[in-house]
């Protein structure tokens, strides 16, 4: 499954890119984040939420969309 994964703020600083298209067999967000931790071990120390198709989701959520974003704590305003 091809996923467009987006990184923001301090997460993008760790991954050294804003986005990438990845091919994974992960069925859930949890499986996807495990895969991401293998690629970017330093993310284990970072606090982030995951959005699927622009909605925040829990780690048990099934992957149904093709746009996943890793979002560090919000700090607007």
């Amino acid at each position: 499954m091809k996923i467009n994964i987006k990184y923001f703020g301090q997460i993008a600083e760790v991954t050294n890119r804003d986005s990438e298209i990845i091919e994974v067999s992960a069925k859930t967000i949890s499986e996807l984040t495990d895969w991401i931790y293998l690629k970017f071990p330093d993310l284990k120390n970072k606090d982030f939420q995951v959005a699927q198709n622009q909605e925040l989701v829990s780690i048990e959520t099934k992957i149904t969309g093709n746009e996943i974003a890793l979002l560090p704590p919000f700090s607007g305003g």
Partner: protein
Amino acid sequence: MEHKKIKSVFKQGAISSEFIGESIAKHQSKTSIGAHNIFLGQVRADVINNKTISAIEYTAYEDMANIKFHDIREAAFEKFDLTCMHIYHSLGIVKAGEICLFVFVSAPRRKVVFKALEFIVEAIKADVPVFGKEIFEDDTHQWKTNT
């Protein structure tokens, strides 16, 4: 329910006092309004470990952020008797002392605008994926956290 097009609330760079003044002036034809309330978020030159913040660089997950701003707007109109409301948030570099958030609510009566403005600003801080990189005078940085 009428479908409203989702607008972008983002502006590149600081929000100028001229823009804010013009926004206020545009409401003079709306004579059912009895009260306005305005929130201006301004970049603070905090000093952390003897280093002073000179600017904040804002980035956002823009597609999701604009949906969230739209949801906050809909919720505010549902909850409060507002005549109109406007939200503008900066992207990119905003220097210390400059304005990065402008929220403007208007209603027939004053008590409504006090409550509505607090609701909207707190919702923006909690729910909208905007990220602030605090840049120090020596070009090092840290990531802003909302308190």
